Structure formats: structure tokens, C-alpha cells
């Protein structure tokens, strides 16, 4: 099966991305570094799904460590897959091979994949779904989310995986979350961020226009606003993400598990060769960038300033969301990407992250549906689901 890098159960209904651990099933995170790594325990979300009777169908491919928004950099890509494997989870869902897929939204990759494949994805409020069992990169922003064909299926699976987990120190205290599809959309006020809309391709703009039209027909109001903090959010998130990734991936050193270079003279060479041989270009670039922003003399200007900016951005976006039920933005610049030289990956991914950075850096819930991205205030997943559900009904 070309979408799976590890097929587990033909009767399964849920796919799990390869940065999420399942006990005794290899977990590669799309990296040569973990080609032969088998975890000793399952992620909390997997335990919850299995407890509720869901069967896991298999592990789906991801861009290396989920860093790759464009999905080009997985070590396990197959040229003949023609790109399908890059968005494996979203493709599986769009072809109805699984009911839903769970995956880690680190840098927006599953959001973008959902837009490209015409399915839905929700990234819930940071702290509502346990990250226990995620091969981590940027712990302060990454969050497990759900890909499914429609809002109803997204809601069903999200309700199972969300809730407090003692094993994750950042997990919020509520044991359970109730989600609804039936909030009244007719009285809602939404806004579109000009800075992002204007930069998107016509194809993406058309999706947004259609979505707005559908909402207005329901009686909702949609306004346009300017929010130039989106550019600061892009840069600050790149800095935070890279720094945390540098630190989290430093555990992959060839000493304990994962790839070890066959030839080395001493411990330093073991580290350098193992990491050089096993990490892909984008991962290396991210590590170097992340080391730099944490270095003595740069910390205050880069990392510390980004942390402060995060606070400012959260406050500002929440202020917008006090006047609007949700924000509408393009989830990506365009719906298809021509092949590019992988040595450009860092720049390409950074450019594309302009569209995905706000939910990542703020921890606010976001949903991709009908080719648009919706952002709501903390714990307002039901608003996102209700909007999506009402637009889907229109389409049907």
C-alpha cells in the first residue's frame, strides 16, 4: 500500500502519522535517523482511540520530523508515488481508505495537506490533546490534530483524543471536551486577513471567495481586516520552532538508538558522522538555524525577543477574536507545488509558513475546511466545526 510506510490492520479505520508512537511498531518520523527505531510504548492518543474501539490501520509517511510543510523531504519518498506519499494521511482520507487520520501539526503540514487534498483537518487548542508519545520538535506549539472527510468525522475523533493526561505536564486540566456542530452561524461575524489573502494564488483566493459567499448566504457577516503582525509571527515562529527542534533532535546522536555511522574513530566523530549521514537537508538547516538563535550573544535578540513577540501576537489575535467569531485565511500560497531543488527547502518552507504560523505560535485552534483556514479563540473548536458543518451542508 503506497500510502502506508507500515500497514498494521486491513480492517482499521484510523491512520496514525509516523511521528506518533505505537508500541512495538517502528516509528521513523520520516527520517533515516529512526529507520530502525521501535518504541516501547504507545502515544496517549493511540491508547485512547484503541480503548474506544477504533482500530489503527497503519502508519502514514511524513516529511522528516514533520518539519516539512511541503512534504517533500521524507526519507521514505518514492518517486513513483508522484507526490501522493507526501500528503499520505490526507490522501488516504480523500480516497476514503480510512475514516480519519491523526497527525502532528508542527508547522502546518497536515493543514496544508488537507487543503491540497480537499479534506478537513483540525488543530485543537494547545494543551487539550496529550502530546505524550509524539517524536517532538517544537513542544511549545506542536499539537496532534485530526484529518477527516467532514466536520462530523473530525468532531467524532477529536472528542476521543482530547482530554487531560497526567503524563503531559502541559496538558490542560479538563478531563473531557464536548464539541458541537450546531452553533448558529447566521449570527456570526468573521474576518479575512488582507495581508494573507492578497498574497495567495488566484486558485486559493477563489476557494476563500466561495467559502465567504456560502457563509454570507447563511446570514454570517464577513469583514476584511489588516493584521501586519502575520509577518512577525512567521519569523518568530521560525525562530522558536528551530531552537526547540535543535534541542529536541539533539537526542538523536547515534549513541543509544537510531542510526549510527558504521565507521568512527572517537565519540565526536560518532556524533558528527551519524547525524550528518542520517539527517536530511531541511532538518540540518533547521538545526543550524536553531543553534544560531540560541547562541550566546544572540539569545536576547532572537529567541527571547520571539518569546516576547509570541505574547504580543497572542494578545493581538485574541483582541481580533473578541470582535469576530473566527478569522479566515488562506492555508497555503497555492494548491500545487512544482518540484524544486531540496537545497531550497528551508527557504521554501519558511515562505509557505506565513499562512500557517498564527495558529502554530499562538496555540489557538485552527481548522482547514473547503480549502480555507479558520482560526478561533481558545476552546472554540465548536465554532470552527459548526462553520465547517454549515458550509458542507450547503455544498451537499
Amino acid at each position, binding site marked *: 500500500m503506497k500510502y502506508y510506510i507500515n500497514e498494521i490492520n486491513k480492517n482499521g479505520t484510523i491512520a496514525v502519522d509516523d511521528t506518533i*508512537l505505537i508500541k512495538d511498531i517502528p516509528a521513523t518520523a520520516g527520517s533515516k535517523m529512526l529507520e530502525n527505531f521501535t518504541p516501547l510504548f504507545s502515544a496517549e492518543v493511540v491508547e485512547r482511540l484503541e480503548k474506544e474501539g477504533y482500530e489503527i490501520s497503519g502508519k502514514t509517511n511524513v516529511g522528516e520530523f514533520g518539519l516539512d510543510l511541503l512534504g517533500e523531504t521524507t526519507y521514505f519518498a518514492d518517486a513513483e508515488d508522484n507526490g501522493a506519499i507526501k500528503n499520505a494521511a490526507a490522501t488516504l482520507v480523500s480516497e476514503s481508505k480510512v475514516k480519519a487520520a491523526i497527525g502532528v501539526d508542527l508547522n502546518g503540514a497536515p493543514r496544508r495537506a488537507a487543503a491540497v487534498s480537499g479534506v478537513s483537518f483540525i488543530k485543537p487548542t494547545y494543551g487539550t490533546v496529550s502530546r505524550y508519545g509524539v517524536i517532538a520538535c517544537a*513542544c511549545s506549539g506542536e499539537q496532534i490534530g485530526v484529518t477527516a472527510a467532514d466536520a462530523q468525522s473530525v468532531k467524532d475523533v477529536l472528542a476521543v483524543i482530547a482530554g487531560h493526561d497526567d503524563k503531559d*505536564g502541559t496538558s490542560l486540566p479538563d478531563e473531557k471536551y464536548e464539541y458541537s456542530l450546531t452553533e448558529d452561524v447566521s449570527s456570526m461575524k468573521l474576518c479575512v486577513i488582507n495581508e494573507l489573502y492578497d498574497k495567495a494564488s488566484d486558485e486559493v483566493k477563489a476557494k476563500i471567495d466561495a467559502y465567504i459567499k456560502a457563509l454570507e448566504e447563511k446570514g454570517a457577516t464577513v469583514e476584511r481586516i489588516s493584521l501586519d503582525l502575520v509577518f512577525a509571527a512567521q519569523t518568530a515562529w521560525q525562530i522558536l520552532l528551530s531552537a526547540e527542534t*535543535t534541542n529536541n533532535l539533539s537526542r538523536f546522536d547515534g549513541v543509544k538508538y537510531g542510526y549510527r555511522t558504521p565507521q568512527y574513530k572517537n565519540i565526536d566523530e560518532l556524533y558528527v558522522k551519524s547525524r550528518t549521514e542520517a539527517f536530511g537537508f531541511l532538518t540540518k538547516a533547521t538545526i543550524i538555524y536553531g543553534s544560531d538563535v540560541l*547562541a550566546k550573544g544572540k539569545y536576547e535578540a532572537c529567541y527571547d525577543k520571539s518569546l516576547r513577540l509570541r505574547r504580543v501576537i497572542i494578545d493581538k489575535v485574541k483582541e481580533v477574536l473578541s470582535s469576530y467569531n473566527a478569522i479566515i485565511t488562506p492555508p497555503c500560497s497555492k494548491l500545487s507545488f512544482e518540484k524544486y531543488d531540496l537545497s531550497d527547502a528551508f527557504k521554501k518552507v519558511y515562505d509557505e509558513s506565513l499562512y500557517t504560523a498564527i495558529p502554530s505560535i499562538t496555540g489557538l485552534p485552527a481548522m482547514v475546511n473547503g480549502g480555507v483556514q479558520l482560526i478561533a479563540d481558545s476552546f472554540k473548536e465548536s465554532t470552527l466545526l459548526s462553520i465547517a458543518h454549515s458550509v458542507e451542508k450547503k455544498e451537499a
Partner: protein
Amino acid sequence: MKYELVIGLETHVELSTDSKLFCSCGGHSSPKEPNDCVCPACCGMPGMLPVTNKHAIELAVKAGFMLNCKINQYTTFDKKSYYYPDLPASYQTTQWFNPICVEGSVDINGRKIGIKQIHLEEDAGKLVHDEATNTSFVDYNRTSVPLIEIVTKPDFRSSDEVIAYLKKLKSSLQFAGISECEEGAMRCDVNISVRPEGSTEFGVRSEIKNMSSLSDIKDTIEFEKVRHVDAIERHTEILVQETRRWDDVKRRTFPMRNKETAADYRYFPDPNVMPIVIDDAWLEEIRKSMPATADEKTKYYEDMGIAAKEAAVLASDRKLCEVFDAVVASGCSAKTVASWILTECMGIMKRLEITSLDISADKLARIITLVESGEITRAAGKKVLSAVFEKDVQVDAFCEENNLNQKIDEGFILDTVKKTIADNDKIVADYKGGKTKAMQALFGLIMRELKGNGDPAVIRTLLETELNK
């Protein structure tokens, strides 16, 4: 010119928690085999998240109270990155930006030593090198074991002050149940510089890493003082700020490789460990659970009538205090108990090379009661005590088996006296011939026969009576 030493200490102490700092692994204080107290979290496996040990927070706060610190009621954890095989995640979680305790002080020999801060952090693992196969093995039992690092200001002016501080620190930490401070569990980095007496500037500083023996620390400081003063006065070398290590065979310090010291640790806040907020109620709860300090304990013992010097020795060691308090509580007089612990117990401990008073207070109390009531002699008491130390024997059973109980044996003593007289005609004849010293010879023989157990006064009376019959 006269020079004065300027010394600051960073002391790492292992906390007495049941589990590690960020996972529930336990048993690390007495592991049976390498890597038998580890889990995916403290092995640095991907997917694991830290969960902070509340008890470690409380013990660090206690240490702060003990050293008169200000407690940061909002305290955070940070990641310190470096590559070494004994550090499985390639980062150590520590407190760089908001340490849990700051701005304290402690009184040492009448001078105030400032405490800059106390912070919590994880320990690293251990590498074991096998020379025979040229292989290195790694043992993660110690990874993520909670430590506090106590950082003083550069306020020490002599090695004696440093040693007095470390001794006081150790006994106070033991008292408060913060750390067992077992051999090697307290490790110091010593920062040393010298300056002309009266100067307020600081000299060039050396940092001597990872010291644990008090005598080595003293020797290190004295060695560095001479080295620094020679460099300044006689230009033997150019002093540079550097990290050095003590060679305990060559008895001198050497610079460490530059590579080990020039690291940039890239500290940043750990996003997985939520800031710890210690509210007033929690703080008060911890304050209430503080035991008496060594100083308070000394005063308390003096009030019981124990001499100042003895009281201080007792109060300096938690085990001595525990046994003393328990034996006194069972009804023995404080002075008598102090004498038994400080003279008899410590004498036996010295002979057996034991450093900690690990005997049952009930047994010591029983021995003291038997001796005080005259049921056994003090010599017999010491004998039982030795046996308790060596084989943990039962006191009463041991006395019976070894005929130590002098009251029951009065008939036995009389028989021995009679038998000795009957067996030693010549000495008896000497005595009767007027040699009074012969009586002493007979007494000695009887004591030997009784293995020193009889009451001497009783034996003497019986012997005189029998001889004069």
C-alpha cells in the same frame, strides 16, 4: 605583601526523593545493576514528556529556608544543551533564569557567608570504561536524579571557613531530611582567587571542578593560594581565568582541556515543564515541616545539662541525634546517654571503621538500663554493645549466654572463689603466711575465671570471707 583568599562554592547535593526529578523511576539510591532504575523518559527516548516531582520542589524550598533564602514563588526550568554519552537527551533540565531560592546567608565561625542562589537540576548518568576491551559502557541509573546546586557568594576567606561551611551544610541537610549526603553525594566546584589584603577588587579566578573529599578541598585551596601568590609575586606563570581539576595522586591542580570549558550551553526555557507557582499556603506548609536546625538542637541539648562541646558533637550528626533522642525518651538520663554515645559507641565505631551510628535505640537503652541498675557491669555493657554493633545480637539473650548477669551469678561466683582457693594451695599458704599481695593474685585468677563479669566488690568480700574461714 599579604594576600587574602577569595573563595566561592557551588555545591551539588542529591535530594532524598523516592523518585527522579521528571519521571517516576525510583531505587536510584541503591541500584543493584547498571540501568535497572531507568524508563524511556530518563533514557531520553523520543515521545516522553517530563512530569515534575513535587517532593523535589519542597526539599529545595526547605534548603532555601535553612539557608535564609528568599523563595521565588514563581520558578521555571530551562534546558542546557551539550553532547555527552552520559546525557541521554543531550540536554539537562536545570534552572537558569528563575532559580527556586535566592539571596540567602549562613553564619560560619561568626562571619556571614552570602548564598547567591539554590537551583534544582537533573543529574547525568555515568560512563564506565573497560580498558581491556577499549569499550565504554553507559549507566543511566543516575540520569534525572534530582540535585540542588547551592551557589555561595565569593565570601570565604580561608580553607577553614570552607570546610566549616561544608560540614555545617552537610549536617543541616541531613537534619532537615533534604539529603542523605552520603559519601560522594555532595560535590563542589571551588572558585578561588587571591588579592592583596584590604583590596576590594577581585583577582584572576580558577574554578576547580567536581571535588567531594573535604581534605582534598582543603589541600586544593592551599595549593591554589600558593600558585596564585607565586604567579603574582614571582611571575612563575601568567594567571588566566580557567577551569582546573585536582589530581589526588599528584596532590596538585591541572588545567582542564579548553574544549571542555568553552561550551555554549544554549540555555532556553523548557516548554514542557510548566512554571512552578508556590502559593503562600504551600510555602507555609513546607515551613511548618522544617525540623530544628543543628544550632537549635545544640542549644536544646545544652539545656538538658550536656556540656557545650558534647552537645555540639551530638547535634552535628542526624543519626547521633536520632539515637540520643530515642534513648532519652525511653527514660535514661541525658548525661548518661550522651556519655554512652560519645565515648562507648563512637569508640566502637572508630575501631570497626563505621561512620554512621546505625544501631537500634531500644538495644542501647536496654544496655544502659542494665548497667545503671547494676545488673551487669559497665565492662559487660561495653561487651554487649560491641556485639550489637558487630552482629546485632539481642541484649538479654547475649547477657544470659555469656554469663554477664552478675546478680544471678552470686552462687556461681562463690563456687568459683572456693574452687580457686582449693586449686591454689601455695598462694593461699603465702597469704596465710602474711603476704597480703597473694590475695590480689587470687582475685586476679577469679576474675580471669569469671571472664571479668562479676561485681568486684562482691568477689572481694566473698574471697576475704572464704580465706579467713
